[in-house]
């Protein structure tokens, strides 16, 4: 860099946090920059997760990568596969001589981003979320439902949605990120595997198996809801968030990270409930698996830059910063200390439902196949699932056919990834 010798080392941090979330990221960076004078974190919004990852990779190929890149959880296998492009976080910390307590992280979160052999953290947990159920308390009251009891089971969701419709609401239940919420998390929540080899943690040759009878039954349940009008499909991503805070939909199942925007825009009182489950499934509810993103340190930077990166990442994980991030956004507290601090501050007592996401993570100790997913080409597999499920909601194909096809197409993508990676 051609800045003067006295200036702080600039560290580029590319992220995908928009709107209210982007403001928080900027604030954290500004606070960190003000806390010392050697390093300057420069946060830059690079579009949504897909675009951010593509931009980071393009920049790396052009020899111009940022030091820190936020990558969504389904990009994890891609990043791990790119060994020469990534500097593992534990290595960054070690080289910089920073003390880094990997045990401080919530196990179910750290597990998603840890090396499956050494258990060292490869990327830095930052914004992790689980799907939760947002419900409109005012609409519940109007429909004659108890505003203080969120629906617990899928049957409850169906019944509540029907009552909301009957009370004049145009959309009873909706959900976003359907692959993540209705198959990945549905499977984990019901103690079912999503793929063989412990969802891919055991090796690159995993095969998808989310077309089991229970998953088919669940998609059939949703298809029936779509048919009788209690479930309205509004899109693949977070379209549901605005549908919920605008008051169109009474119940919305989407990421806990939507809380910041819902809190900012909703003009009614709302509640947060746990993911619904099917009461007849043995072992349910099990535990949720995370979504969201983590921070990756890219290779090829100077030792000084890495030192700054290490200091910044440690700053992020420090209890006050991590706790505030969690409280402001609805993302999970990534360390146990941040969780305890939040509790001690009385935040959960004042904000019922804010601990729903973390409770789902800690509900039960994860099984080998409910730790998360480590599958290559996962962004494309999500798209495949989206496409096939849309065929179900529009009545063009049966749930069984859709899931079988999604598994078959997804397995082709997995095989392709295994070939590219070797």
């Amino acid at each position: 860099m051609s800045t003067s010798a006295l200036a702080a080392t600039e560290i580029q941090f590319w992220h995908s946090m928009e709107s209210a979330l982007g403001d928080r990221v900027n604030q954290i960076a500004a606070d960190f920059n003000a806390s010392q004078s050697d390093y300057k974190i420069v946060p830059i919004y690079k579009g949504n997760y897909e675009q951010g990852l593509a931009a980071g990779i393009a920049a790396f190929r052009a020899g111009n990568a940022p030091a820190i890149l936020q990558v969504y959880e389904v990009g994890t296998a891609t990043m791990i596969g790119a060994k020469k492009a990534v500097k593992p976080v534990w290595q960054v910390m070690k080289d910089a001589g920073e003390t880094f307590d990997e045990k401080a992280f919530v196990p179910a979160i750290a597990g998603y981003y840890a090396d499956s052999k050494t258990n060292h953290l490869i990327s830095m947990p930052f914004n992790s979320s689980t799907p939760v159920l947002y419900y409109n308390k005012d609409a519940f009251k109007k429909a004659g439902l108890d505003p203080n009891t969120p629906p617990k089971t899928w049957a409850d969701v169906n019944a509540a949605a029907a009552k909301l419709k009957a009370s004049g609401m145009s959309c009873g239940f909706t959900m976003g990120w359907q692959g993540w919420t209705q198959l990945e998390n549905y499977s984990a929540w019901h103690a079912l595997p999503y793929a063989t080899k412990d969802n891919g943690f055991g090796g690159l040759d995993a095969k998808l198996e989310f077309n089991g009878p229970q998953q088919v039954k669940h998609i059939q349940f949703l298809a029936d809801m779509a048919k009788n009008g209690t479930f309205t499909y509004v899109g693949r991503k977070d379209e549901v968030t605005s549908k919920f805070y605008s008051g169109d939909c009474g119940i919305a199942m989407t990421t806990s990270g939507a809380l910041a925007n819902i809190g900012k825009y909703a003009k009614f009182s709302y509640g947060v409930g746990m993911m619904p489950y099917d009461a007849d499934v043995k072992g349910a509810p099990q535990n949720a698996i995370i979504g969201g993103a983590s921070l990756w340190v890219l290779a090829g930077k100077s030792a000084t830059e890495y030192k700054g990166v290490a200091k910044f990442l440690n700053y992020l994980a420090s209890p006050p910063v991590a706790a505030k991030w969690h409280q402001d956004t609805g993302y999970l507290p990534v360390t146990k200390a941040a969780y305890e601090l939040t509790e001690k501050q009385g935040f959960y007592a004042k904000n019922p439902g804010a601990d729903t996401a973390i409770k789902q993570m800690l509900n039960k100790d994860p099984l080998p196949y409910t730790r998360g997913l480590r599958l290559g080409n996962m962004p494309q597999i999500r798209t495949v699932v989206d496409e096939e499920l849309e065929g179900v909601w529009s009545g063009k194909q049966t749930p069984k056919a859709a899931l079988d096809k999604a598994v078959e197409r997804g397995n082709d993508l997995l095989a392709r990834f295994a070939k590219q990676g070797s």
Partner: protein
Amino acid sequence: MAQNSRERPRFGTGWLPYALVAPQLIITALFFLWPAGEALWQSTSTQDAFGLSSEFVGLDNFTSLWGDSLYLASFKTTMIFSGLVTVCGLLISLLLAAMADRVTRGKRLYQTLLIWPYAVAPAIAAVLWAFLFNPSIGLVTYGLAKVGIEWNHALNGGQAMFLVVLASIWKQVSYNFLFFYAGLQAIPRSLVEAAAIDGAGPIRRFFGLVLPLISPTTFFLLVVNLVYSFFDTFPVIDAATGGGPGQSTMTLIYKIYSEGFKGLDLGSSAAQSVVLMVIVIVLTVVQFRFIERKVQYA
């Protein structure tokens, strides 16, 4: 083509003409030939997203495309999409240009309003239309619901196709309008008046006189619009439907974009772009060899 018997002007020195065309040649080489060559090379390899390892696989990427029924289906989608965008786009623009040519009051206002959409970026155009047709809060959706039509393009493939075609046409109408309008303005008034005196009505005048006279413009626009609908429409599709629902708006160019940039599968994406490149070259050759014969250059 008209024969030119006059002697052409000549440059005195040998290097000047080369120097004059050099910038264009350099740009073509840098921004077309090089990337095209790169695509050809990449289409024969598989590599990881970061480009750290790559392996030569010959024509594997192409053969796996022909085995993919969804890829083959996207040809049909592309044909429907491009056909609708090109034909409807040209017809609407011609109609608007003909009407703007006839008005005497407020001519400037109509021109400005019709040219305006061209200044809008494709992605913004798509968001704008997607917003109007938003399943729950869209203004048009509200109106349609009043007359009993339920609109949800996140679910209904036909509606999604309608939406991306509409946004793409709207975006391109201005460009077409400008050329048609200029073409119509260039027709000598005396010819039209003579036809009118001979008793030809407006419709007869249009088809018998005006249309043949603007055929060079129409041909040019046909080529440009076809290329536009093949190559430049992915921001529209990305912002409005993302290729969905299912794969009902997955055109060839959007598939390349989504598999290359989102899926990070560069080998397959490169193979697909080579196929698309060949298609467009063939289409352009066909147009120039067969359709251009019908064009009368004055």
